[in-house]
Each structure stands twice: as structure tokens, then as C-alpha cells.
């Protein structure tokens, strides 16, 4: 029976938001994965691997779409070190014994655990050498991830040079070990002083002395150098010395000898880039000009004339240069810290493609709001034009109207030809485009992102501490900063008004305007109606009243709880309800308790308690308490109110370890008489019905769906711990589900979609489908102009996701997957059948005239 009901519920839930294959990965779903700022990054296997500010290791296809392709959350990543090899990335931290070996192409993870914390990792071609904090040396193989422990004396430093076949390791700057064929081939001790650089068997000391390895004699031979400073090794035969405006190429075959001088721009940053076949010196100036010297031919011919030089020009200075291969040709990837730059051919220095990063705007405090974009100036102008038509002359009116209609038709045809039916214009016309507005603390800007993708606008930089943001009215936004309260135009983000902040910390929505709350509460503008507000303290709530025409709030009541408030909710003023009751089988009506001023408060001392209080009079209407033996994770308590119900979720550690969702449905008496005053009205709740459900997965936040007229059935939207945005229909979370007997025919007539009670909810499919979300954000819902459909967005530091939900399916929109072909086939088949059967029908009718009955 349970299984049957589970299947029934699951089928009902999937019915609510089944997404067809044809709708998958279409423009209905917009997702942007953010990485914020990369604190360190390297190019490995054509993927840019970086450490983001939100403790993520990300792999970015920098040469492709410049978007995140994989990401891993690693604890303490910010303080970890990154070591990049050709195909693997190693992350290690001195606080942990673990080394994370990550495949840079797809992010596949392998964890290697040492007996002490790793302090240094050096690449050796086929693997890496690791020195740990206890002075032990180990070797990790790239391919297998297996560890070879090498027992030496205490190792403090290592310098590794590898040519693919052999690895040369200098231990503690005094011993050289040559590794090959899985063993140590030779080991020598030496003393050259303080080593600065070791490559290709050449040691450069801190005082620019040069030592060359003689493998036959197994010793380092000194090459006298008193002429050149700031030396770097190109290969076993050549060095270079970088000066302020030149690079000197030096031969060390027998003695230190100047081969050529390469002139560069003053104060350039000089870097040697190597690949197995190519060696290049890149000198980057501060104005974005790079002089590239290709030494590949020179190192073979040893003729300075074979050094190729070309210049690369960028619009700005870039600090990171990587040698890479693009379409089988050597290329230079040059990017700045924001991942903007270009990919250049190293054949002729031409730009192959510009590299542009995706925007990285997000709110640190999760303060996101969703708004309808204001009407465009063009629409406003058109409306004015229609209203201002001269009514005196019929002919001129007709001509104006025809002209306007022709112009509209022309625009429609042009847009249809350009974008097809699903153009942005139509999505804006029908309210599918919303703006998600927030203050980006790192860029110090107020930003509006379109729910259909892209940036709508950015404000001018605001160098102040952000506190709060809300919508003031259709055309304006209000934001509290430490020093000022700013009013913005929601169409372009321009600042309209600036008010001094007198310790305001909160914005409260009031019909037609907003109130600012600090030590006192004041309205921004006086309104023609009385306003009632509720203020929350640590263990109390209080009512405030602002008479019409005034701006200052006065306290009217205060309700003190014996416990601390855990969470509270009230009904969103934008929420709409279309029905006042539920028709029952006996033709009576079960009336909903619809009080828009109702406030729900969850408190906790020894037990979780739910209080329902009228927000105008302060009357306590209902209180219920959970058993004391329930041990609740208080940070998990979330509550949402809408229509005549309250849904709250919490995670319980004991007596059972599970995620609970409680639903409270409020019902009213049949309306006997009405009163104009809220103070005279009987506010008591006739009946309160509750049911508790178990969700298979931990829920981190919940919200209620909204539609324009409130006809569509409501749903609860929840974000689960694994990053699924799920939609649980309210008719599943129904307190009137029968739990103590078999359902009768009358039960099915008493409610919509009646199903027997099963405490365990079936896990519905995710709204975000295959796109996994980071579950630390905010759920944003706004109705479209279609009753069936709402826009849903989920924004946080890591993801910006938008899609649409249709709790009662797409009853007023012809879906994109509508079978137009089948409809046409049906019509054609019917026509063929008609044509074929016509002579038969004729004959039958004729025969009927002749035959006897």
C-alpha cells in the first residue's frame, strides 16, 4: 500500500514539472557558474586550473568558451599550495597529510595520504617528488597515483630537473641523485654555495656563478663568470641575462661568452617559455606590448641570426603567459588576473582569438532581489501615442492607426526573420525576462542580471559598506549603505536620490512605498492609507502603526515570547489567492482562513513552538509545541507562509535522524457577517490541521511558488543539500491527507488530487535537472504574465541559475514540444479516410433505398 502510494505521489509530482527531452538544455534553463576571483592559476592540459575565493578548485576551458568545466570543493583550499604538471594538478596543505591529485582535464580526484604533511612538491615528468614535514622524500606516480617512499636522511629542500627519461634531484643543495628506470642511477655529493636555479644540468648560484654537471666524471665543473648578472638557464649550452632594456644571450660551451644582445622595452618582465620542442623568451612591457624571441632554431644552429623576433600587442598589460597548442600550431596564451587577454600565433604573432572572461558578479551576503524590468521608453512612448490620438478627424485617426499597425507588423516580421518565434522581445513581452538585482561587494556596484542571461545594467561604483536592498516601486530600487540611502532607477541603475543614513539597517515593504528601520521606523513618503508593520526582536515581536499622511511609526503592541525566536514569516504582499474555500462532496465549502496580516513565529527553548499572531492587533491566534525529546538543528529551521497555510522544515537529530517538513492548514468558519474594521472582526481560526512529512534529503531553504492571479496550484520550492532545486506540490503537502483508514469515494471528492498519507515524500525530479547547484543561495520566484508559469532563479557565489516552473502544467502556453506534425498527420489521415469512404457511404445510402428491410 505504501509503495503504491509512493508511486502515485511520484507520478503526480513528476506530472507537475515533467521536462521533456526536447525541452532539455534549451534557453528555458540559464546557468552561469562563477569562480569569483582566482587567487592562483596555471595552464595544464589546455585547461586553466585555478583556486577560487570560495574554496573551489576550478577547471576552465580558457581557450574555448572560457567557462568552468569542472569544480571541486576542497577544504582549506585558500591556504593550500598548487603544483601543476603536464596533466595533473597537486594540491597540498601543511595542516593535512593528504595530497589531492586532480586530473586537469576532467577534475577526477585521487587522494594520496602521507605519514606527515607535505611541504614541497616538484615535478619530475612522469611523477612528482614530495618532501614532507618530517623530512622524508616520496615519489608519486602521475598515472597510478601510487607512492614510492624513499628513505634518505632528513630532506629539507629539493630541486628537480627532468628530461623525460631521467630525473636529477638535488637534495639539501649538497647532493645530486639521478633517477631512472625506477631506481637511483648515481648519487654524488657536492658544494657550490647557495643555489638559485637548477636546470639542464646547470646550477646558477645566488651570486651568479655557473656550474655544469659532468655526468662522466659525476661532478659539477665551475664555469667562470664575472661579467653577467641575473642569469637564467636556457639549455645546457646557453644562458641569458636580463637587464633593464636588453637580454643578453650567453654561451657556456667552454667559457661564458656573449652571443647576442636582444633589445627590449625598458622595465619589461622577461620570461622563458619552454615546450619539448620550442624555447621562447617573452619580454612583456607595462603597456601591453610583448617582444617574443623564438630561440628554437638558434639552439640548433647556434647562429644568432636565426633568432626570430615578433611583437604582440594587447589592449592592456597581461601578467600570465602560457605556451600552448591551438589547432596543431604553437600559440601563446596571454591573460590577466581576470582571465582577459588573447591567444596569439607563435608563427607570426597574429591574434588567433581574443579571450574574454564571463562576468563574475555576485553578492557576498546573499542579498538578491528579483524584479520585473520597467517598461521600456519605446513602450511608454507607444502608449502615450495611442492615448494622445486626435479624436477630431476620423480619417487622420485611421491613417495613424494603419501606420502604427504596419510599423508593428514590419517589426514583427523582421524580428521573426532574425530570431524566430522565441525571440527576446516575446520573452520580455510576456514577462519571462526578470532582473535579479544585487550589490557586488568586490566590484562595489549594484548589478542587474537578466533571468534570460546577460547583464541588464551596472551602477556607478559605490564606495560604501552595503547593508540592505529592496524594491521601492515598479521603477525604483532602494539600497541602504553605511553612509547613505540611495534610490536607483530600476531601468538603468542610475542614482535618483541620495539620503543620509541615520542608522537605518532594514528596509520594510509598505504598500506604495518603503519604510526604513533603525532605532525608529520612518516611511520614505507618506501614503493615503494607514500602514501596519511588525518588528522582530530577539525574543519578541512588536506592532507598529503609521497613520495615513504621516511618516513616523508608533508602537501599538508588543508580544514577548518566553523563548528565542528561531524564524518567522508572513504572507508576501504580492501573493494572490483565487479561491476562498474547498468545495466538499456534500456541496458545502470548507473555507480557508485568509488573513494577510497573519504572522508565524517559530521559537525554541526546550521545544520548538509555532505561534500564529495577528500582525495588526497582536492577538495570539494559535500556538502549538513539538515534543521536548526532539533534538532539532536550529540552523535548519525554515518557514514559508502563503494562502491559508504555513510550511516549515527542520532537521531533527533525535529521536530519528531525518529532515521533516510540517504543514499547517488554517480553516475558517463560513462567513456570517462582515465588518469594515479589523479590530471588530472575529480573527479566530476555526480549525488548524497539521501533518508532518519526511524528506529523503536535507533541505537548506524553502519558498512558495507565485503566479499572477493565484489560480494555479501552489508548490513548495526547496533546495536540497546535494544541490537539487525541487518542487513539492502543496496538494502533496496536504494536512487533510487521510492516515487512519482506506480512502472512500467521498474522500476523493473532498479535495484536489487526494492521495493516502505517507510520511515519506518521494523525491521529485530536480528543476535544475543535470545542473548541480551549490546549495548556499537564495530562491527567487516571480510570476510571468501567463498564469501557469513563474520564473524561478537561484543565485549565490557559485551559481546563477534561472528557469521556469509550471505547478499546474502548461495550460495556457502551447509548449515547444507540442506535436504540430502529429496534428497535421491526423488532419491529413482524416481527409484521406473521408475521400476513401465517400463512395462507400454513397453506395450504402443508395443500397438502403433499394434493399428490403
Amino acid at each position, binding site marked *: 500500500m505504501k509503495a503504491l502510494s509512493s508511486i502515485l505521489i511520484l507520478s503526480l509530482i*513528476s506530472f507537475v514539472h515533467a*521536462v*521533456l*527531452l*526536447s*525541452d*532539455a*538544455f534549451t534557453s528555458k534553463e540559464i546557468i552561469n557558474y562563477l569562480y569569483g576571483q582566482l587567487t592562483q592559476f596555471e595552464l595544464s592540459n589546455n585547461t586553466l586550473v585555478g583556486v577560487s575565493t570560495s574554496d573551489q578548485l576550478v577547471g576552465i*576551458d580558457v581557450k574555448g568558451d572560457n567557462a*568552468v568545466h*569542472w*569544480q*571541486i570543493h*576542497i577544504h582549506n583550499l585558500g591556504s593550500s599550495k598548487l603544483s601543476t604538471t603536464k596533466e595533473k594538478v597537486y594540491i597540498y596543505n601543511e595542516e593535512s597529510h593528504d595530497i*589531492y591529485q586532480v*586530473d586537469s582535464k*576532467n*577534475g*577526477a*580526484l*585521487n*587522494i594520496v*595520504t*602521507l*605519514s606527515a604533511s607535505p611541504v614541497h612538491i616538484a615535478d619530475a615528468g612522469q611523477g612528482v617528488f614530495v618532501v614532507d614535514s618530517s623530512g622524508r622524500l616520496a615519489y608519486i606516480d602521475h598515472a*597510478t*597515483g*601510487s*607512492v*614510492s*617512499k*624513499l*628513505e634518505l*636522511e632528513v630532506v629539507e629542500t629539493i630541486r628537480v630537473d627532468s628530461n623525460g627519461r631521467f630525473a636529477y634531484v638535488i637534495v639539501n643543495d649538497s647532493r645530486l641523485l639521478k633517477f631512472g628506470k625506477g*631506481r637511483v642511477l648515481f*648519487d*654524488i*655529493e657536492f658544494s657550490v654555495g647557495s643555489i638559485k636555479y637548477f636546470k639542464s644540468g646547470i646550477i646558477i648560484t645566488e651570486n651568479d656563478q655557473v656550474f655544469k654537471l659532468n655526468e662522466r666524471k659525476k661532478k659539477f665543473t665551475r664555469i667562470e663568470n664575472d661579467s653577467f648578472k641575473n642569469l637564467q638557464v636556457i639549455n645546457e649550452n646557453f644562458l641569458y641575462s636580463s637587464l633593464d632594456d636588453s637580454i643578453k644571450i650567453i654561451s657556456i660551451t667552454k667559457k661564458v661568452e656573449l652571443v647576442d644582445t636582444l633589445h627590449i622595452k625598458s622595465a619589461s618582465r622577461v620570461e622563458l617559455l619552454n615546450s619539448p620542442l620550442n624555447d621562447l623568451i617573452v619580454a612583456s612591457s607595462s603597456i601591453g606590448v610583448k617582444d617574443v624571441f623564438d630561440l628554437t632554431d638558434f639552439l640548433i644552429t647556434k647562429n644568432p641570426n636565426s633568432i626570430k623576433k615578433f611583437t604582440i600587442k594587447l589592449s592592456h598589460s597581461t601578467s600570465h603567459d602560457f605556451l600552448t597548442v591551438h589547432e596543431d600550431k604553437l600559440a601563446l596564451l596571454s591573460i590577466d588576473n581576470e582571465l582577459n587577454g588573447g591567444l596569439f600565433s607563435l608563427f607570426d604573432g597574429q591574434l588567433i582569438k581574443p579571450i574574454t572572461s564571463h562576468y563574475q558578479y555576485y553578492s557576498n551576503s546573499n542579498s538578491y532581489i528579483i524584479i520585473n524590468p520597467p517598461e521600456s521608453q519605446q513602450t511608454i512612448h507607444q502608449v502615450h501615442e495611442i492615448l494622445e490620438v486626435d479624436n477630431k478627424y476620423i480619417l487622420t485617426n485611421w491613417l495613424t492607426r494603419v501606420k502604427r499597425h504596419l510599423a508593428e507588423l514590419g517589426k514583427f516580421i523582421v524580428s521573426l526573420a532574425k530570431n524566430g518565434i522565441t525571440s527576446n522581445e516575446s520573452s520580455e513581452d510576456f514577462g519571462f525576462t526578470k532582473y535579479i538585482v544585487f550589490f557586488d561587494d568586490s566590484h562595489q556596484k549594484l548589478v542587474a542580471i537578466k533571468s534570460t542571461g546577460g547583464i541588464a545594467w551596472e551602477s556607478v561604483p559605490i564606495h560604501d559598506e552595503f547593508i540592505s536592498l529592496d524594491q521601492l516601486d515598479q521603477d525604483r530600487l532602494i539600497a541602504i549603505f553605511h553612509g547613505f540611502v540611495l534610490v536607483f532607477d530600476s531601468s538603468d541603475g542610475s542614482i535618483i536620490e541620495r539620503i543620509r543614513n541615520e542608522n537605518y539597517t532594514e528596509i520594510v515593504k509598505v504598500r506604495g512605498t518603503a519604510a526604513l528601520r533603525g532605532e525608529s521606523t520612518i516611511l520614505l513618503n507618506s501614503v493615503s492609507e494607514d500602514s501596519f508593520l511588525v518588528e522582530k526582536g530577539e525574543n519578541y515581536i512588536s506592532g507598529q502603526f503609521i497613520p495615513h499622511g504621516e511618516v513616523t511609526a508608533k508602537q501599538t503592541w508588543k508580544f514577548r515570547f518566553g523563548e528565542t525566536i528561531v524564524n518567522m514569516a508572513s504572507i508576501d504582499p504580492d501573493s494572490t489567492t483565487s479561491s476562498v474555500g474547498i468545495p466538499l462532496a456534500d456541496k458545502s465549502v470548507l473555507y480557508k482562513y485568509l488573513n494577510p496580516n497573519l504572522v508565524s513565529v517559530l521559537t525554541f527553548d526546550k521545544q520548538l513552538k509555532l505561534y500564529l499572531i495577528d500582525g495588526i492587533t497582536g492577538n495570539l491566534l494559535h500556538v502549538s509545541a513539538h515534543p521536548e525529546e526532539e533534538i532539532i*538543528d536550529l540552523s535548519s529551521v525554515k518557514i514559508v507562509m502563503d494562502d491559508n497555510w504555513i510550511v516549515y522544515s527542520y532537521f531533527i*537529530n*533525535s529521536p*530519528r*535522524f*531525518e529532515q521533516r517538513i510540517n504543514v499547517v492548514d488554517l480553516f475558517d468558519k463560513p462567513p456570517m457577517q462582515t465588518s469594515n474594521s479589523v479590530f471588530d472582526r472575529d480573527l479566530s481560526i476555526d480549525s488548524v490541521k497539521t501533518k508532518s512529512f519526511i524528506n*529523503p534529503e*536535507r533541505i537548506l531553504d524553502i519558498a512558495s511558488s507565485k503566479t499572477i492571479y493565484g489560480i494555479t496550484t501552489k508548490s513548495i520550492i526547496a533546495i536540497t*543539500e*546535494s544541490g537539487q532545486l525541487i518542487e513539492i506540490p502543496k496538494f502533496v503537502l496536504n494536512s487533510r491527507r487521510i492516515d487512519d483508514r482506506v480512502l472512500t469515494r467521498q474522500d476523493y471528492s473532498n479535495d484536489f488530487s487526494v492521495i493516502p498519507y505517507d510520511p*515519506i515524500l518521494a523525491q521529485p*525530479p*530536480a528543476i535544475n*535537472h*543535470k545542473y*548541480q547547484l551549490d546549495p548556499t543561495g537564495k530562491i527567487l520566484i516571480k510570476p510571468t504574465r501567463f498564469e501557469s508559469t513563474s520564473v524561478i532563479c537561484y543565485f549565490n557565489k557559485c551559481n546563477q541559475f534561472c528557469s521556469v516552473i509550471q505547478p499546474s502544467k502548461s495550460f495556457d502556453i502551447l509548449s515547444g*514540444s507540442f*506535436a504540430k506534425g*502529429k496534428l497535421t498527420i491526423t488532419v491529413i489521415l482524416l481527409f484521406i479516410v473521408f475521400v476513401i469512404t465517400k463512395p462507400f457511404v454513397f453506395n450504402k445510402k443508395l443500397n438502403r*433505398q*433499394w434493399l*428490403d428491410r
Partner: protein
Amino acid sequence: MTRLINIITVLFSSVLVSAIGFQGQIINIPKQVNELYHEKNVVVVNGDNYPARIKVDLYNLESDEKTTSLVQQDYSFKFQDLKAGIYELIVNSYDFEFYTNRYRILVNDEIILAFEDRLGENSYNKTSEVNITKTPLTINFKYTKQFYENPQGSIGDWFLNGPFGFIFRNRVYTIIFTVMMGLSVAPYVLKWINPELAKELQEIQVQASKQTLEKAPAPSKSQPQGNIRKRK
């Protein structure tokens, strides 16, 4: 020189456990999963990196502390340095469903035991005890989650879901239906294929009906004649 250095190369792929802990292994994950986004040529972050989309949390039920383990590419995970106590292990995958994803873990100084702890039950399943001190806890793959629903849009599905769908869903009904349709259509088809045979059959049919009429008793005169019309 060799006396100075004593090199012992020891290959080890497992962990050096400093305190009590356990390992887990998710098994039977299919090597190849048909993903729609590959067909649609869309980039999904961690799309093929399934281990990164699995969350493994160990909750200490006595102190409310939570420890998270990363899942490696071989679908293994581990928890180290555990104190004695009662824990709850929750394994949630974004892409896969497991037979059991909740375990009660009892840790004492020497031994770690795991029990299945099904959702909604008052107690964990005491008969499902597994000692995971030295051997990893194995978690079995059940099925791959489907994120998109097949619209059943083929013509075949269309017929099956139509008013005559019940005929085509049942093999016997389908045979009977096909035979009946064949019999009813056969005379007309025969006219096109073999008109002579069709004529012959028609004559046989006419003769048979004549014989039947002859054998039948003549109607009595008192009975009404009905609407007998003259044939032209």
C-alpha cells in the same frame, strides 16, 4: 656512498591510518552512462566527473559535528581520526540512486560497525551489521537518475496511447484484429491482384446465397410484403 643512503622503495596505494577510521566503496557504478547533454553538445560542469557530484557526510550524533569526505575517482571515500561514538553516514549522489544511502556507524576504540538505517524507521537494522574496521563499507549502485522525461512522441507510442491502444498492447487482440481487418479488406485487394479469381469467388458467393434462398420457405401471403421496389 650506498652505505650513506639506504633507499627502500615501498609501493603503497592505501592510507597510513594514524587513528581509527574507515573506508567506503561505492560499487557497480556503470562505466558508461548515456548522457543527454553529450547529444545536445552542452557543457555541464562536472558532467562526467560523477564522484565530485557525490556528497558523503558523517554526522556525530553525540556532538552534532559533521565531517565531509571527498569521493575519489574510484568511488572510494574515507574517514580518519574518529572518536568513539555513534555516527550517521549519509551518501547522496546527484546522478545515482543507491540501495542504501544511510548507515548508522558505531565506533569504539577498536572496532567500527555499520548498520543500515532506513528512512522513517524507528531504529536502524540491527541484523545488517557489518564490521568495517578493516574492510571498506560497500554501497551498491541501484539505478541512474533520469532528469528528463521521454515524451513518448513516436508514432508507435501515439497508436498505443490512442483509443485502440488496448488492442495493440495485447498480442492476441492484435492477431485477431489483424486477421479480421485482412478478411474484410481481402475481397477488395483481390479485385486488384487477381480480378478473375475475385469474380469466381463472387459467383460462388451468389450461387451460395441463391441456394440458401431456395431452401428457405416461401413467405406466407398474410405477411406484409414490406417495401418492395421495382429494380430498373
